[in-house]
């Protein structure tokens, strides 16, 4: 029992954090906004050069064969920087699903190119209404009643639904998947799709956690500079207490997100409840953080000029994707109302055998 990241996990996350600080600053986002672009291909190339594409893909399929707990801090770092490009969606969520069917006809070439960073792949999962950034993806994994399909994306399939988040290009995909596109039947796709939902919820929670912390950091930075009544507003308890309240929420969401990452591979009642709990608590923390950051900035917080609105919009989006609060509350309820509770059950599947 050791609830700390291993050295390699810390080092990998530090490398990603450092790169994002360099290529995904506020100025970088602003530059993208003024050009009307949703993504920056130069930045994406640099991210791909980190060689992370296969982090969750088994070694036998050309990946690194690492676990969700090895990626969770990276997803958090992406949230912290409000990263527009689909590192989390592609690497954390889509590619492990694609790799689960690497042996099916037509899959290998896509997987190979995706691992090389040449293409990205979208997932159209029943829990989500829209597919973000589908216009940059070469293919989509589409779940239908008859199973899982791998469909090459062509522009005419896509209908864009503009999001308030300028960096989220949402689409619906109109296509007619059939036997030719099906890579797995309903039953064999069921477990990989469930695990995809878990990864989606978990890494979304991690991003929300990062965004919550960034909102606090932005508000702290501003409240140290902004003077009213002859003092920085951050010296007033009214501001301090609001921000401290948010920080407490973040501090108690973070270990849940990390434990959920460690639990995910168990794929059982307990791991699903903890992933859902992570999604719920990170959403709550992020929501409060965004509101508090706007309030701390005063009228500036309601302006386009301050970055907080970018976070607010992404937080609104991510709170709902990969299962909204009601969905996840019911997954927690399934565990709370059916399995033993109490202090000896924190890591329940272990103590059951103790």
């Amino acid at each position: 029992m050791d609830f700390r990241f291993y050295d390699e996990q810390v080092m990998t996350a530090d490398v990603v954090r450092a790169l994002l600080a360099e290529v995904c600053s506020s100025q970088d986002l602003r530059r993208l906004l003024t050009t009307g672009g949703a993504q920056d291909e130069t930045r994406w190339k640099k991210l791909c050069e980190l060689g992370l594409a296969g982090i969750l893909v088994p070694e036998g399929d050309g990946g690194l064969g690492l676990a969700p707990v090895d990626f969770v801090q990276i997803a958090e770092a992406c949230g912290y920087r409000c990263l527009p490009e689909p590192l989390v969606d592609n690497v954390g969520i889509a590619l492990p699903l694609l790799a689960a069917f690497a042996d099916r006809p037509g899959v290998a070439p896509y997987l190979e190119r995706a691992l090389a960073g040449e293409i990205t792949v979208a997932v159209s999962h029943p829990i989500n209404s829209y597919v973000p950034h589908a216009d940059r993806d070469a293919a989509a994994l589409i779940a239908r009643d008859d199973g899982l399909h791998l469909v090459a994306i062509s522009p005419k399939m896509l209908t864009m639904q503009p999001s308030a988040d300028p960096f989220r290009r949402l689409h619906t995909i109109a296509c007619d998947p059939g036997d030719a596109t099906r890579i797995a039947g309903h039953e064999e796709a069921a477990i990989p799709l469930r695990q995809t939902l878990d990864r989606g919820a978990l890494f979304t929670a991690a991003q929300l956690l990062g965004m919550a912390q960034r909102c606090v950091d932005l508000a702290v930075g501003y409240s140290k500079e902004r003077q009213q009544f002859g003092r920085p507003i951050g010296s007033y308890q009214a501001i301090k207490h609001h921000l401290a309240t948010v920080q407490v929420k973040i501090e108690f969401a973070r270990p849940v997100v990390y434990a959920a990452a460690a639990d995910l591979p168990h794929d059982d009642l307990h791991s699903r409840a903890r992933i859902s709990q992570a999604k719920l608590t990170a959403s709550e923390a992020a929501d409060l953080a965004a509101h508090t950051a706007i309030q701390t900035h005063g009228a500036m917080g309601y302006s386009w000029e301050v970055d907080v609105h970018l976070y607010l919009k992404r937080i609104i989006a991510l709170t709902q994707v990969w299962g909204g609060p009601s969905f996840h509350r019911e997954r927690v309820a399934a565990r709370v109302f059916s399995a033993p509770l109490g202090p000896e059950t924190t890591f329940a599947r272990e103590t059951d055998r103790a």
Partner: protein
Amino acid sequence: MNLIYTEEQKAFRREVRSWLEAHVPRQPLPSFDASREGFEAHREWERILDEGRWGMVTWPERYGGRGLDLIQWLIFEEEYYRAGAPLRVNQNGIFLLGPTLMEYGTPEQKSRFLPKMASGDEIWAQAWSEPQAGSDLAAVRASATRAGDEYVLRGHKIWSSRAVFADWAFGLFRSDPGSERHKGLSLIFFPLDAPGVRIQAIPQIDGETGFAEIFLDDVRVPAFNRLGAEGEGWAICMATAGFERGLMLRSPARFQVTARRLVELFKTCERDADPAIRAAVLKAWMDTDAYALSIYHTASRLNAGGQIGAEASTNKIFWSEMDIAMHKTALSLLGARAELSRHASEAVEAGRWLDGYFFSLAGPIYAGSNEIQRNIIAERMLGLPRV
């Protein structure tokens, strides 16, 4: 990261469980705050724990402990609360003063005070607050005047839990008469039956006398009773407060038992409960789980040589507010029975939820009010300016 208990840890859990099953009193003990009888029953329980060397598992063996790490401490606490074992009447001693003594005490002080603390022969109260020094603890006025090998203590302490029946207190005194604020304070122990000590019980919100005022009128104690250097009392108190808020005082297990009871209560009246209450019940479980995970995280860090920092403050805010929320949810579920006192025949669990709710309201006040904790978080974690 590895969230799996080792075989050794599992074996330790089994050992704790079987000892507790054999020794925990079948009937709950009477409250240690309501009567001398209840207090002494709890002291006896401390003796039984100590005889089994379960009094304080993290303490070194030479002081009656087992020299175990914080993960094992958490396992012990989980089993302790699971077994419904009595509350620790000497928590001020074993959880707060004990660790501080081990860090700052001389070898002679350790051998004098720690074994009797572990055995329950000496139960401790804390004597820090004064009528004019609450959140502003540095405004302490009670004085310790050096007279040869002794200190003469004078002043008025208040809100001292357990002081009515306890044997000793550790107090914060101004030992340098010309000093101000955090400087010139010393931490000094005094027996509560020493000549010149007068204890006045203060009835609490629930009618019991859990805390008291202490009047000190020229109380003479040997200079040996000073912990740490003269004038260093503030730093030592803050270290104690760190232990208190941070980890030891409120182990997650306590709240996880409350959450379990809340879910059980919910199941008895589920059909009538509105969805908001159901959501609050689920939140109770999630919060207690989050608190446990957070403490495992901290314990892992401390085991690896880390220091406790501002999480002492974040923890205190989180558990105190969570405790109130859980009890409030229970009162909502109880409906008309919420107000029933423990003497009412229809009271659920002998009014334990209402008693618990009252007690939970003290949580954001004692051990440093939550307002002060929020200041600490804002200033030390977030780096906001003090003035």
